[in-house]
C-alpha cells in the first residue's frame, strides 16, 4: 500500500514560484499546501529567503518560494543548482498591479532559464483576479499573453510554450491552476487518465477526479472537459468528508505513527445525494489519493457495480505505482519504464474492466 514512501532516492521534481514582491507567491504556497486561510495571508511577512517546502504526497515534490526582491537569475547565483531537477517555473503576476515590470522579469528569466534547462515548463499565474470583473480578467489575460509572446518572439524563443491561468486564493481557481501545473510533473498522467476514462464509460460516471487529499489538487481526471463548478463541488466534498470524519470518525489509534490525515482512513467512502438529482461519490484510493465521482442519480442505482469497478480501478492504480516503485528500487531496468508500464496496465485494465462491463451488461439485462 505504501506506494510512495518506498521511493527513497528518486529525484523530487522542483517547482519554483517566481514573481515580483507582493505578488502572492507565499500566500499561494501557504493556502494550497498548508491550508492557511486566505484571509490570514495578509499577515504573512515578506519572504526574505528562498523557502523550500517538501510536499509529500503521491508524488513528492519541492516548492521553492523565492523572495521577489532578489533577482536570482543574475549572475551571482548558481543557476545550475537552482534549475537542476527543476520541473516547472511558476510566475506569479499581480493582476491588480501594473504588471509591465513583472512581464519583463518573466521574459528575462525565461531567456536565461531556457539555456540551462530545456525541459522546463513555464506557467504564468495571473493572480489576485478575485477583485476584477470578468471582462477585465479576459482582457488582462489576453494582454499579458500577447506581450509575453511578442517578447519571446523577439528573443527567438517562440517554441517555448507558456500556460496562463487566472488565479485567486479566495476561490478554487488556484487549486485548479496548481492541479494543471502538477499534472505536467506526473509521468503516469496518460495512463491515469486512460484508467479514469475506462471507469467513467463503464460506470456511467459524468466526471471523475483523482484528488490529492491533502492539497485538494486533482492529479488526473477523465478526458471530458472540466467544469469549474463540478470541480468545486468535488473539492468541497473532500472537506466535508474530512470534517465529518474528524468529528464522528473512529478514534485513530496510530497517533504515534504521526500520519497527518488521521481522519482520512483506508476505507473512507462517502456518497452525497444532491438536490439536483446528482450524486457525489468518494472513495479512498490510497492514503494520499481519493477518487471523487460526479454522476446522475439514475446511474447510481447499482452501487455494488460501482464499488466493483472502483475495486478494479484501485487495483490498476496500484499496479501503475508498483512499476514506479520497483523502478525506484532498481528492480526494473530503466528502459522498461514507460512501455512496460503501459503494457502492464493495458493487460490489467482490459481484463478487469471487461469483466466489469460484462457484469454491468448482465446486470442491466437482468433489471430489464
Amino acid at each position, binding site marked *: 500500500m505504501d506506494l510512495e514512501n518506498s521511493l527513497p532516492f528518486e529525484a523530487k521534481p522542483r517547482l519554483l514560484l517566481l514573481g515580483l514582491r507582493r505578488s502572492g507567491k507565499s500566500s499561494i504556497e501557504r493556502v494550497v499546501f498548508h491550508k492557511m486561510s486566505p484571509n490570514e495571508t495578509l499577515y504573512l*511577512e515578506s519572504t526574505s529567503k528562498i523557502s523550500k517546502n517538501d510536499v509529500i504526497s503521491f508524488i513528492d515534490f519541492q516548492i521553492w518560494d523565492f523572495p521577489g526582491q*532578489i533577482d536570482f537569475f543574475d549572475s*551571482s547565483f548558481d543557476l545550475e543548482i537552482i534549475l537542476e531537477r527543476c520541473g516547472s517555473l511558476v510566475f506569479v503576476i499581480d493582476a491588480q498591479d501594473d504588471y509591465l515590470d513583472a512581464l519583463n522579469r518573466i521574459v528575462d528569466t525565461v531567456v536565461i532559464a531556457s539555456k540551462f534547462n530545456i525541459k522546463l515548463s513555464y506557467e504564468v499565474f495571473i493572480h489576485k483576479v478575485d477583485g476584477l470583473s470578468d471582462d477585465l480578467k479576459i482582457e488582462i489575460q489576453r494582454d499579458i499573453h500577447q506581450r509575453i509572446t511578442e517578447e519571446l518572439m523577439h528573443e527567438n524563443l517562440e517554441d517555448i510554450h507558456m500556460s496562463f491561468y487566472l488565479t485567486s486564493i479566495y476561490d478554487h481557481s488556484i487549486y485548479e491552476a496548481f492541479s494543471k501545473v502538477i499534472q505536467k510533473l506526473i509521468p503516469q498522467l496518460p495512463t491515469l487518465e486512460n484508467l479514469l476514462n475506462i471507469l467513467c464509460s463503464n460506470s456511467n460516471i459524468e466526471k471523475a477526479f483523482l484528488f490529492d487529499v491533502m492539497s485538494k489538487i486533482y492529479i488526473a481526471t477523465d478526458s471530458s472537459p472540466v467544469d469549474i463548478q463540478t470541480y468545486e463541488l468535488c473539492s468541497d466534498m473532500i472537506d466535508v468528508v474530512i470534517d465529518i470524519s474528524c468529528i464522528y470518525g473512529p478514534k485513530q489509534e496510530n497517533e504515534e505513527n504521526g500520519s497527518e490525515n488521521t481522519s482520512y482512513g483506508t476505507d473512507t467512502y462517502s456518497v452525497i445525494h444532491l438536490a439536483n438529482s446528482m450524486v457525489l461519490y468518494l472513495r479512498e484510493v490510497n492514503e494520499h489519493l481519493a477518487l471523487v465521482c460526479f454522476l446522475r442519480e439514475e446511474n447510481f442505482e447499482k452501487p455494488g457495480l460501482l464499488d466493483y469497478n472502483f475495486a478494479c480501478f484501485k487495483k490498476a492504480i496500484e499496479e501503475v505505482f508498483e512499476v514506479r516503485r520497483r523502478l525506484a528500487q532498481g528492480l526494473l531496468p530503466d528502459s522498461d519504464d514507460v512501455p512496460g508500464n503501459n503494457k502492464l496496465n493495458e493487460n490489467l485494465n482490459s481484463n478487469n474492466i471487461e469483466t466489469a462491463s460484462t457484469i454491468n451488461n448482465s446486470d442491466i439485462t437482468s433489471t430489464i
Partner: protein
Amino acid sequence: MMIIAFSNFCEVHGPSIISCSQGFPINQFYKLEKIISENSNKNTAKSSCSGCSLIVPQQPLPSPTPTEKSEEQNQTSHPGFQQSQIDMNINFEQTQLNHQLSNPNDIQKQLDMEEEENQSAMAVDEDDEDHPLQINIKKNMDDNIREDQLNETAEMQKANKKASPNKIHSNPTINESDVGFKGFISDDIENNMTYITTRYPYLSRLYPIVRQACVRSLSCEFCPGREGAIFFGDEQNGYSLSYIFKLKDIQARGFQRWYSISFLHSDKSFIIASWGFLVSKFKATAKDLQANAEKMFEFEKKANQEVNINRVKVYSPLSPEQFIRRRGNQPLRSLVDLLNNPNVFMQLHSTFAWILRASSDRLYEKRQENYDMMDSILHMKYSELSYSNESDKTSNENIILLDQEGMPVNINGTSQQNEVNEKAETKAETTKPVIIENLKDLWRIFGEMHFKYLIYNTAIGTQIIIRTDKVEIATSIIKVLKSFIPESCCTSYDYLDEYIEPWRCNMLGIKKDVKIPSEIDESNYVLIDISTEENTNEIINIQFKPVIDQLQTNYPFQKSVLIDQIEQIVKSDIPSKVFDIQMFVFKEKWLNKSKLFFKFIKLGKTETENKQDSVINVLNVNRSDIPIMLYFSRGLGKNDRQILLRD
C-alpha cells in the same frame, strides 16, 4: 580590513546595506577622503529609499571639541536637540537595562581575559550613566586603555550629549551633503584612528564583498531559531559573522522586518576567536533596538485601536483591500522613524566604532623575535630580488675594511647573477678574474671534501683564514661564507696585513706573507692558502691547513644534516635567483632550529641524553649539528633570548 555592516531586508529593494563602519588611520583617511570626494559623484546615483538609507540628522552637531561648553551650546543654541535628548534618555534606560541583562550571561560565556576587560569596561560605563561624577575617579584608577574604552562606550551611549573629556569625538558630518555622501566620523586621537560610518563602504572595491555578506546573511543563510549569529565566507571574499534579528514594525508585512549586523574580516580564525565577544555585543545592540521597536509597536498598536474606534485611518492599513492596494514602490519607514529616535544611527555608529576599536585591541601583533637575527645582507638581497636590481651598495657597508678597488667587479649584485652558470663554465677559458659569488662557486673551486669541511667549520664558528695575494678572492670568499650563517654571530675582516685572534673574529682575509702565530692551536682555525697567477686572478693552488684526509670518512661534517642539505642545494641545477631564495629559506630554517634547541638547552636544564635525542629527532638533525645550532644561537640578541625564554 574590518568592516561592520548594518543591513536590512528592504520591502522594495530586498537585502540592502544601511551602513558600513570602518576604521582608518587618521592620516590615511584624510588622504582617502580627497580621492573619494573627487570620485563621489558617480556612485551616488542610488535611489533614495527611506527603508534602507542611512539618515544623518540634518543639524550638524558641534565640532570636534565636545567639552562641557559644547553641551551648553547644544542646549542653548540648538533647541532642536532638547527633544532628541529626551528621547535619548528613554533609550539610555533601555540600553542600560539590556546591558545589565546581557552582562551576566556574557560573563559566563567569557572565554578570555580580554573580553572580561571589555565587559567590565562596559559595565563600569553603565554606572557612569547614573553617577556622572564618578567618571573621573574611575578614570584615574583605570589604565589608559580602559579609560579610552570607557570614554568610547560613554560616547556610544551619550552620543555626544554628555560631554566628557573625550578622546574620541563623534561629529556627524554632512560631508558633501549635496552629492549625497553622508555619514558619521569619530576620531580616536589617542590611537590615531578614525572611524567612519557611511551608507556604502568607503572604498568602493569593498562594495561587492559587503553586498554579498548582506545578501547572504538576509536571504541565503538560515540561522537555527531564525534570530542569531551565523558565520560564513570564503578565502576570496573574506569571512563574515552576521547577527540576524527582527524588529517589530506595525507597518511591515507580518509586522516585522529583518535586520542583520555583519562583522567582516579576512581572517577566519580571528572572527572565530572573537565570536563570544562580537556576538554578545551584537546581541546587546539588537536587543536594545528590539526593545525600542517593541515599545513603539505597542504604542502604535494602541493608537491604532483608538483610531480605529474613531474610524480615522492613520497608521497601518486597516482593511485588507487597502493593505493590498498600498503598492507602488512605497518603502517602509526608516529606522529613525521606526524607533522614533533621530539619533539611532549615531548611536549605532558609536557602538560599531567601539566594537571595531575593541576588536582591533583584541588583535595584537607579536613581534617576530628573530627579526634581528635575519641576515641583513640576504634580507636585502631578497628584497632586491623581488623589487629591483639596485646595486648592493648597502651590503658593502656591512663589510668592514672594504677595499674599494676590486669590489665593483667582485660583488656586482644580482644583475650579473643570471649568467653565473654560464660564467662558471666559461671562466676557466677566459682570463677573467675569479669571482666567487655563491656557494656553488666555492663548491667548484674547492671540491666536495674541502667544501664540506670549510662549510662545517664556518657553521660551527671555527676561525676561517684566507691567505692570498688577491684581495678580491679573500673578500668574495668571506662574503659567500657569511651568507649562510646569522650575521650577528660572525665578525669578519676582509683583508688585513696582520693576524687577528680567533676570539676577535671568525673570518679573516690576510696577505700572503702574514704568519699565523704558533701559539694558536691548529684546531682553532682553518687556514686556506690560495695562490694565484700574477696577472690574472686564476687560482693555481689551494692548500688547507689542517690538512684533511680525502679518504677518511669519520669527520663530523660528513654526518651533518646541514652539510647534506647545503650539498643538495648546491648540487641542484637551479637558476641563481631561485638559489638565493633557497639559501635564504635555508638559513631561516636553521635559525629556527637553533632557537628551538637553544630554548631546550636553557629550559630543559640539561635533560637526559634520551630527551636530547628526541629533540634532535624532532628537529630532524644529527648530533654533528649540535655545535652548529649552538653557534647559530650565539647570534641571538639579548632581547631575543629573553623573549625566547619567557614565552
